[in-house]
């Protein structure tokens, strides 16, 4: 049923429909509304789940790790510093092959302290062994949580999944969402049936020491599963479309006006909506521009991106994060997708925008297109305020 709903509340509703047995989280802006709503639902008796209040994100992650190890579906959500405080456990969850689902309400990281949106938090944990998918709008944010449980709990996968949604822009944004009905959720998402679990009747050990004779194979196995998950994402998205009547192509990327384009912007998350507006405006003026939206950041769909961009002369990669001292995170991947290949863009320029909630406007996107010339640029910052960079500032 179509509802006008706040992003965070819609996420709480869909998590309720997934019926996790254990929920644990520590409140942090802009994730807070999601877990407040879930706590309320548990307290009202609407959702039969154990909601574990904890003193930190490290404990929240540990609780869902433990919960998942006992063979139940679990859920947590966090942002920014909270995600970083979880980091040690986040890697353990993936290493133990536990299909935890987490919402990352994307927020900038400290210092300076900043509560607003960018994607530095989840991108910094790209190597953790979690599948990461990024929503453009709240419909996707809702749908992606169903897909996250289904994919992560697939016996061929058994990996945690992080659904990333831009803080405030989506979490605090109210818009129309077609909320999946419970009977369809139950049809799409079977009860979690773990491969292994902690059970006193049949005791096993999990997450224990692997010496140099064993460790590498555990890591190799995750790498292989990640690669195979590219195919599973496509497969599951068709099943999702069949049950819910949506039109997801493969949940790897979305191609928007890329077919005959001579300039394409690559980006991820809610900013893609703003970029589509500029693409339409420029197309109306006869400019051949397009957008390639990354949905799955881990696993990264190199082959799919190669196919989508191989005949495009100029590509601009727009990152809402930086890798300080190196090329920007998504730009690195896009360049890698074409290295040593016969075809590919002549120019792959990289732009950084929207850090710490600096608003990305239509004009910001037009500026990216203007700066996408024959001369390749790297980590070119958009919408910088030069007056704040003067040495005398602050004296």
């Amino acid at each position: 049923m179509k509802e006008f709903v706040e992003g965070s509340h819609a996420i709480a509703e869909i998590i309720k429909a997934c019926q996790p047995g254990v929920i644990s989280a520590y409140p942090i802006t802009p994730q807070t509304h999601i877990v407040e709503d879930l706590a309320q639902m548990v307290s009202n008796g609407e959702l039969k789940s154990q909601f574990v209040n904890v003193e930190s994100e490290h404990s929240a992650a540990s609780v869902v790790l433990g919960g998942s190890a006992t063979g139940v579906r679990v859920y947590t959500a966090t942002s920014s510093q909270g995600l970083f405080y979880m980091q040690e456990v986040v890697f353990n969850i993936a290493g133990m092959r536990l299909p935890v689902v987490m919402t990352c309400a994307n927020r900038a990281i400290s210092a300076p302290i900043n509560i607003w949106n960018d994607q530095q938090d989840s991108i910094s944990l790209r190597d953790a062994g979690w599948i990461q998918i990024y929503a453009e709008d709240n419909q996707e944010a809702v749908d992606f949580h169903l897909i996250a449980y289904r994919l992560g709990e697939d016996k061929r996968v058994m990996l945690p999944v992080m659904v990333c949604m831009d803080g405030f822009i989506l979490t605090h944004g109210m818009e129309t969402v077609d909320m999946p009905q419970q009977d369809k959720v139950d049809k799409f998402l079977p009860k979690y049936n773990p491969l292994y679990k902690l059970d006193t009747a049949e005791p096993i050990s999990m997450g224990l020491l692997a010496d140099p004779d064993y460790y590498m194979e555990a890591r190799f196995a995750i790498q292989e599963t990640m690669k195979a998950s590219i195919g599973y994402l496509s497969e599951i998205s068709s099943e999702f479309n069949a049950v819910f009547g949506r039109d997801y192509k493969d949940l790897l990327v979305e191609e928007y006006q890329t077919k005959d384009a001579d300039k394409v912007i690559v980006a991820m998350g809610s900013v893609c909506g703003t970029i589509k507006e500029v693409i339409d405006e420029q197309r109306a003026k006869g400019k051949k521009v397009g957008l390639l939206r990354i949905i799955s950041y881990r696993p990264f769909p190199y082959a799919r991106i190669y196919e989508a961009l191989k005949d495009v002369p100029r590509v601009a990669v727009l990152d809402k994060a930086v890798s300080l001292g190196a090329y920007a995170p998504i730009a690195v991947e896009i360049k890698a997708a074409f290295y040593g290949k016969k075809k590919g863009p002549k120019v792959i320029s990289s732009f950084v925008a929207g850090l710490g909630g600096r608003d990305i406007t239509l004009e910001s996107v037009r500026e990216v297109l203007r700066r996408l010339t024959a001369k390749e640029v790297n980590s070119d910052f958009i919408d910088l305020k030069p007056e704040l960079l003067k040495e005398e500032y602050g004296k």
Partner: protein
Amino acid sequence: MKEIRIHARAGQGAITTATLLGYSYFNEGKFPYAFPNFGAARMGAPMNAFVRVDSNPVRLRSQIYEPDYVIIADPTLMRGFNCFSGLKEDGVAIINGKDDLELPKLKAKQKVFVVPANEIALRNIGRPLGNTALIGAFAAATGELKLENLIAVVKNRFSGKAQEGNVQSVKEGFEFVKNKLKG
């Protein structure tokens, strides 16, 4: 596409205002996107809430710089900011304030309605929360939304005494502007 920018202080209910407007547009078959932008995260700090609405789902995620409509929930904000910044040539502003409020010089086709929303709210709700009076005034001033739809949305949002008082505030805000338009 229509764009509404609300100027308020954190705690004055700007998000509620945006939410109520959003629900009203949704009920009339439109696709609204209502969202806040916080400044310093504390009560009393200046903040904005926005509503962008179209007949198709809204994709544009930036803040609103060239609004069709401006709602100013706290006139003291006009001292430090240009709340009318970017207001369209034929834009409409609704201001919560008293008759003697000093206004900047506006463009020929722009319209301003100063509505005693706090007075209306104090009389009906017992607290100076003028949001519901302002959305009533907004509906009358712009013709964007039907009064009975707003009332239905407000009834759904509040219960008991608060419901009664807020419904009355919507009506009085609406009537106030209707009477102004009659001259």
